[in-house]
C-alpha cells in the first residue's frame, strides 16, 4: 500500500480527476493549499503599486492505493497535470510514501481490503 500525495495547479484538477477515473482510481481527497517552489511567485498590481505574491494557490491530492495501482496513478497525474509544450515550472510534484495500514470506519476492515 502506498499513499500518493500530488501538488498540482488548481486549473488542472478537473483533467487529473478525469485521468484518474480512466485508470479506475476513484477515491481521492482534495484540499486547497498554498506554497511556493522554484516558481517563487508572481507580481500583481494594485492602485499603482506592484507587489509580489510568494504563496501561490495549489491543489493537493491524497490518494491511498494498492501496489498495482501506483504506477497507473502516477502516470495519470503526470499526463493530466503537466502543462502543454513539455511542462513548466510550477506544475507541481508527486510524493509516494509507504502506507502502514488502512481502516474503513464503517466496517472495521483493515489493510488492502479497506482501500
Amino acid at each position, binding site marked *: 500500500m502506498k499513499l500518493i500525495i500530488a501538488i498540482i495547479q488548481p486549473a488542472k484538477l478537473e483533467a487529473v480527476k478525469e485521468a484518474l477515473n480512466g485508470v479506475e482510481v476513484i477515491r481521492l481527497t482534495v484540499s486547497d493549499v498554498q506554497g511556493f517552489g522554484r516558481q517563487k511567485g508572481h507580481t500583481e498590481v*494594485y492602485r*499603482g503599486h*506592484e507587489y509580489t505574491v510568494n504563496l501561490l494557490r495549489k491543489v493537493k491530492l491524497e490518494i491511498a492505493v494498492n501496489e498495482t495501482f501506483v504506477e497507473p496513478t502516477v502516470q495519470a497525474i503526470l499526463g493530466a497535470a503537466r502543462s502543454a509544450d513539455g511542462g513548466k515550472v510550477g506544475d507541481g510534484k508527486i510524493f509516494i510514501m509507504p502506507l502502514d495500514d488502512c481502516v474503513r470506519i464503517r466496517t472495521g476492515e483493515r489493510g488492502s481490503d479497506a482501500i
Partner: protein
Amino acid sequence: MRFLISLLGVLALAGTGVSGYAEEPAVLAASETPIAAEPLAIAVEESAPAEAEPAEDTSFAGSLSGLSIELTPEEAAAVNAYDASPESFTWDKNVAKEIIGKIKESANKDSFFTASNIWMMLATALVLIMHLGFSTLETGLCQSKNTVNILFKNVMIVCIGLLTYAICGFMTMYPGSNWIIPGWLAFGTGVGFDLGNPVDYLANMTSAYGYPYTVFTDFLFQGMFAATAATIISGAVAERIKLGPFLIFVTLYVGILYPIVGSWKWGGGWLADANFTDFAGSTLVHSVGGWGALVAILVLGPRNGKYGKDGQVRPVLPSNLPLATIGVFLLWLGWFGFNGGSVLSAQGGDVSYVLVTTSLAAAMGGFAAAMTSWVVTKKPDLSMALNGILAGLVGITASPDISSIMMSMFIGLSSGIIVYFAVLMFDKLKIDDPVGALSVHLVCGIWGTLAVAFTNGEWVVQITGIVAYGIACSAFALVTALIIKVICGGLRVSAEEEHEGLDIGEHGTPAYHFPEAAGH
C-alpha cells in the same frame, strides 16, 4: 411678527416672478384673479381699510385670497381677527382645521409644487442610497477583518447625521435672518412647526415656503447631504481608528462644523453674497468631508506595514472588488438625486440637463482614470476606474447646471486623471487613505470648484471659497481631533488589534462566520 411678515412677503413675491418658480402659469392666474375671493376681500377692507392693492397684501387674509381660497364667514372672521392682532390670537381648533384643509386643497391643485415635491423626496431617497454605496465601496476596498467596523461606522453616521441635523443642523445651516454674526455664524435648533396653526401651515407646507416643496422635504434632503460629508471621513481613517473617538469626532464635525460652514453659501451667508458658486457641494459637502479626513489621517498615521522603511509602498489588498463596484454604481445612481435634487425643483429642462452633465462627467472620469492606470502600470486597474467615476462626479458637482456638455466631459476627464496621480501622491507623502477618499472628495472637490471659473470666469471668488473652507474645516478638525485624542487617550487601536482586525477588537464579532468551525 416681523418674521411672519417676511415669510408672507415671500408669498407675495412668488406671484410677481421673483422666485423663478412663478413662471408657472397657474400661480400667475391665481394672483391675477381676485374674483373668487370676493367675500374675503370685503372683510379685509373692513378690518384694514388703510391697505389698498390686494397684490401687495401681506396679511394672512390677503395670502389666502391670493391663492383663491374661499372662506366661510366664520373662518373669514377668524382670519381677520388673526390679522388684527397676530400675537394675541388663538386659533379655534375646528376653524384652524378647516382652513388648513382648504390650504391643502389649494396646494394639491398646484401641479408644479406637487411634481417638485415628489421629485425632491425621490432625490432624498437617492441620496440615502449613496450611503449604501459608500458602505459597500469601503467594505470592498478594505480587508475582510475590518468589515463589521466599517459597516458599523457607516450605519452610525447616517443615524447621527440625521439626528444632529434635526437637533441643530438644519436651522444653523439655513438661519433665514437669525444670524449671530451676519453671514458667518448662526445657531438654531429644531425642525418643523405647529401643524395645527394655519398661518405656519401655509408658510411651510405650500409654495409660500419660497421653494416648490415643503419644509420637511427640505429638511430631509439636506439632512441626507450632511451625513454624506461625515461618511467621507469614515473611509479615509478605516482599519485603524478606535470606534468611540471616531464617533465623537464625526458627531461634532457633522453636527456643528458642517452646518456652520454650509450656511456661508447655501444659508445665504457671506460666500453667497460674494457669488461663490457651488451647485451641489463639490466644496460644501465633498471638500468639507475631505478636509476632515485629511486632518484625521495626519493625526492618526498610516496603517501598520503600509509603508516600508525605505519608502516603498506595500499595498493593502482589497477584500472584495465586486462589492466595491456595486458601491460605485450605487453612488452614481445616488448622484442623480444629489445633483438632480439640487436643482431644488422639478423644472424639466434644468433637471434633465443636470443629470446629463453629471453622468457624462462620471463616464469620462472612469474612462480617464482607467486609461491612465493602463498606460502607467501597463495594467488597467479596476479600483482606479471606480475612483475615476467618483472623481468625475465630485468634480462636476459644483457646476452641473452651468457647465456646457463639452465642459462637463472636460471636468470628468481632468478629474479622472487627477485622481490617479493624487492616489500616488498621497502614498508618496505616506498619507494612508485606504479607499482614496482624499483623492476623490478633497482633491477633485477643490478641482471641480475651481473649474467653475472656466465657465463663469470668477477665479478669485472660487479660490476664496476653497481657501476659506480649507482653513475653517482643517482648523476645526485639528482642534477636535487633538482634544479627543487627549480625552480618550489616543485615537488608534493597538498594533495587536489592528493586526487581528477591528471586527473582533472593537465589536467582538467577525463579518463572516464559518458554521463548521463554530461547531454548529
